[in-house]
């Protein structure tokens, strides 16, 4: 095991110079110094084990056993292969990434307002966009998180979105991250950056899918900066292959009175680890983190969140629900940090889980660290089974056992789904749920 750990780190340290020298035109010094600094952090940081408090229930050994390597060249796939991942045919803005690279011919950019930038991070780096120097690497800490350090060292492509002050992007921006590991076990490193200027508004859907049920690793980092009064409606749908690994870090910085609304749906992956780290840099901010994880088999889903109430008068609402079947395992760790000066903070957190089998397990831990005295904070966690009385009631109305179960599970999940306001992504999520629950019914 120790040997493998060494090799994973060794491979990426060894091949780093090679990676840098292969970048042509995407290597302005500002970016390269970030990459190099992150590489130093990566080599100095230790890969986490279950002895680390933050990784207590999530053993990454299965990841280290494999040799996942980044893909060096752009590729493409036929258009009809991505059809099933699209929400509908009316989507105006679609960014397609294949194994971490932007695929222009599959993407759509209809009706994008002047001044709004939506596209490939690699292209922005190549064009020496000032956004890069100003924002890249600023909102997702790579000094403590080894996988974020890896992403930062090897950052190359991903989605970049910039909405200038006062602009409103009406159409939802659908970002499709496809992994195609049919040929080899790849490491997919999408690196995303969303910057919303003062009073601007956008809706972004990060959608992770794969061409087949193959084994690969996605290590993705999304950095978000919301300037004063900006509103970002964020949805993440993770439908990775059930044999894949998914490690994600979303880092958010919120300026005065900005509003971050996020809904996360975690359906896929053998093992997934999702870190949300948000910070209020000024007063009046709102942050909503909702989500649903639905897993079965021997899979594991880990959600870690930190909401940093660094300033007074900010509100956060977090509600994650989990549905666990078979021998699956869920981990929820919700940290709410209310710093000394953050008076008048409202922070609410809730984690509810339903266990469908005797062997499924959830470790849920609220972690409230409150240093201010005039605050309203609450948290709650539940782990339960399907309500027997409700199940019986449905059956006495002629509804069969499996269908009755499906109805109740669906109902349990429904409030999280209902609170999604991006309609086309909501129906996509609904359809996933219907397919999952009705699979053995008709």
């Amino acid at each position, binding site marked *: 095991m120790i040997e493998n750990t060494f090799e994973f780190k060794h491979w990426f340290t060894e091949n780093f110079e090679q990676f840098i020298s292969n970048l042509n035109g995407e290597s302005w010094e500002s970016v390269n110094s970030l990459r190099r600094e992150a590489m130093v952090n990566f080599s100095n940081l230790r890969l986490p084990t279950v002895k680390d408090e933050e990784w207590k229930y999530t053993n990454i050994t299965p990841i280290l056993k494999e040799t996942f390597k980044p893909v060096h060249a752009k590729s493409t796939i036929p258009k009809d292969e991505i059809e099933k991942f699209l929400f509908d045919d009316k989507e105006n803005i679609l960014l397609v990434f294949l194994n971490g690279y932007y695929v222009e011919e599959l993407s759509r950019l209809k009706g994008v307002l002047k001044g709004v930038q939506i596209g490939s991070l690699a292209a922005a780096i190549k064009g020496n966009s000032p956004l890069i120097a100003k924002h890249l690497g600023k909102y997702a800490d790579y000094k403590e998180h080894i996988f974020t350090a890896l992403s930062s060292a090897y950052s190359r492509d991903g989605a970049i979105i910039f909405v200038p002050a006062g602009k409103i992007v009406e159409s939802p921006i659908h970002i499709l991250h496809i992994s195609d590991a049919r040929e080899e076990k790849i490491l997919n490193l999408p690196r995303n950056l969303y910057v919303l200027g003062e009073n601007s508004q956008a809706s972004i859907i990060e959608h992770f899918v794969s061409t087949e049920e193959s084994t690969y690793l996605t290590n993705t980092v999304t950095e978000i900066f919301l300037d004063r009064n900006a509103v970002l409606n964020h949805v993440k749908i993770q439908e990775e292959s059930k044999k894949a690994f998914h490690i994600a870090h979303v880092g958010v910085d919120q300026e005065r009175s900005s509003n971050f609304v996020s809904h996360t749906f975690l359906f896929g992956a053998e093992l997934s680890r999702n870190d949300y780290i948000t910070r209020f840099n000024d007063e009046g901010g709102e942050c909503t983190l909702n989500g649903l994880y639905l897993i079965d088999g021997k899979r594991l889903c880990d959600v870690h969140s930190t909401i940093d109430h660094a300033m007074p008068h900010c509100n956060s609402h977090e509600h994650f629900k989990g549905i666990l079947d078979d021998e699956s395992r869920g981990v929820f760790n919700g940290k709410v940090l209310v710093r000394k000066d953050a008076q008048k903070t409202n922070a609410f957190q809730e984690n509810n889980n339903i266990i469908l089998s005797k062997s499924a397990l959830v470790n849920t831990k609220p972690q409230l660290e409150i240093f201010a005295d005039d605050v309203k904070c609450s948290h709650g966690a539940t782990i339960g089974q399907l309500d027997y009385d409700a199940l019986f009631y*449905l059956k006495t109305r*002629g509804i069969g056992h499996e269908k009755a179960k499906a109805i109740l599970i669906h109902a349990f999940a429904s409030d999280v789904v209902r609170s999604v306001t991006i309609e086309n992504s909501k129906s996509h999520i609904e359809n996933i749920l219907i397919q999952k629950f009705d699979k053995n019914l008709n």
Partner: protein
Amino acid sequence: MEKMLEIKNLYVSVEGNEILKGINLSVNTGEVHAIMGPNGSGKSTLAQVLAGREDYEITAGEIFYKGKNLLEMAPEDRAREGIFLAFQYPVEIPGVTNTNLLKTAVNEIRKYNGLESMDALEFLSFLKERMKLVELDQSLLSRAVNEGFSGGEKKKNEIFQMAVLEPKLAVLDETDSGLDIDALRIVANGVNKLRSKDNATIVVTHYQRLLNYIIPDFVHVLYNGKIVTSGGKELALELEEKGYDWVKEHAAELAAG
């Protein structure tokens, strides 16, 4: 007139406590039976057993429904074969609308009987027609099942579901309790409209009052897990007059006949 339900020497335990202690009851098509008795006598237990509640243990006895061994049937199959229980305490189901519940139920039952599903429009007009029967407020259709319903609304909703599912054997467990007189009349009217010579009703109640509206053919008094006496509709009046203490005091004599 055919035999619909036959309960023979039924013993039931709940969590190790014997609740029903040798129930015998026979119900024919076209009949209305009232089961009365003091609190805790086992009325709801009997009703739940008929509906197929799995955590109630049948320690002895048999139940036949339309000639079939009822105890071998899953709750959903009992419902599909025409048994309906109006719950004393209807269950709240957040996230599932009344319409959705009924649509699924109707189509599951139709499928069981080899019929096509009803389409949405057809179903909606059917619902609306049935709603009139119990004067149910239309807004309750799109609300989550029983969630936040008043006591009366819950009871009405049970009868509404019954009207939609058109059972052969309806078991109404204290559907009258907590209803004001107007609501009681509406509920009773609904039940009466659904009566026919082909189906049967078991009305579980504490009070004689409901039986002024739903006239029973037989009245049974359940006490301490046993039917201690049975009679015609006049037994309900007698019971009302003498009170349940009379039953308790004379249980032994009554049982002896």
